């Protein structure tokens, strides 16, 4: 079934490495602003974006503890987007590539994020209004 108000995003960037991750999350946020359903297929390093055991840390160089540093965690950003989607009553789905998860040992993911494979990306892309693939370069 086609979803005319759903967009798919394929993303492969790991957390904490690149400005692309920030732009990617901003794009998801912009889609929700437009009351558009979002589907994400995360593969390669991006499967760690939803890793539940991410931990904030302090910054000894600047003399700040963990609370003062307020280190951003991508799992929290995903949760915030899930909540925003619920508030706007639009869909927000997230599937991690299972092979990529196993390679990295990041099986423990936050609630609401699933495990799948390339056929899910095909399904997401086929059903969605449009798809954007963000490469690492």
């Amino acid at each position: 079934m086609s979803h005319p108000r759903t967009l798919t995003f394929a993303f492969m960037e790991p957390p904490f490495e690149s400005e692309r991750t920030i732009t990617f999350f901003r794009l998801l946020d912009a889609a929700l602003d437009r009351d558009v359903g979002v589907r994400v297929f995360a593969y390669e390093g991006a499967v760690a974006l939803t890793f539940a055991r991410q931990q904030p840390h302090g910054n000894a160089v600047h003399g700040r503890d963990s609370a003062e540093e307020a280190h951003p965690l991508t799992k929290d950003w995903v949760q915030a987007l899930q909540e925003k989607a619920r508030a706007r009553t639009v869909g927000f789905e997230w599937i991690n590539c299972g092979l990529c998860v196993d390679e990295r040992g990041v099986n423990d993911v936050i609630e609401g994020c699933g495990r799948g494979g390339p056929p899910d990306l095909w399904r997401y892309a086929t059903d969605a209004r449009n798809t954007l693939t963000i490469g690492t370069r």
Partner: protein
Amino acid sequence: MSQYLFIQSQDPFTESRTRHQFDLIGQLHEAGHDVSVLLVQNGVTPARRGARTGSFDRLLDWGVPVLADTFSLEQREIDDADLKDNIGLSSLHVVIDAMLANGKVIWH
């Protein structure tokens, strides 16, 4: 005729492949397609007045619509007045609008 929106995140001063990316954008424009560009991240750097990037400046000369992400500009302390002529300001919502309009949205 197809609609293209290129999200240009790479900058020509550190990524030599951007010349080919700008060439592709220009060729699609010359072929009559509806092509526009959104500069994000370090992709905004050639938009600064005085930045010398022939392949990018040609797109402006040809009238290819070029927008710059305000967030990326602010991060780099580039003001509207610092931009070359014919570069507009935009949020990322333009990407969502293009996708909803069935445009071909391509990440560079």
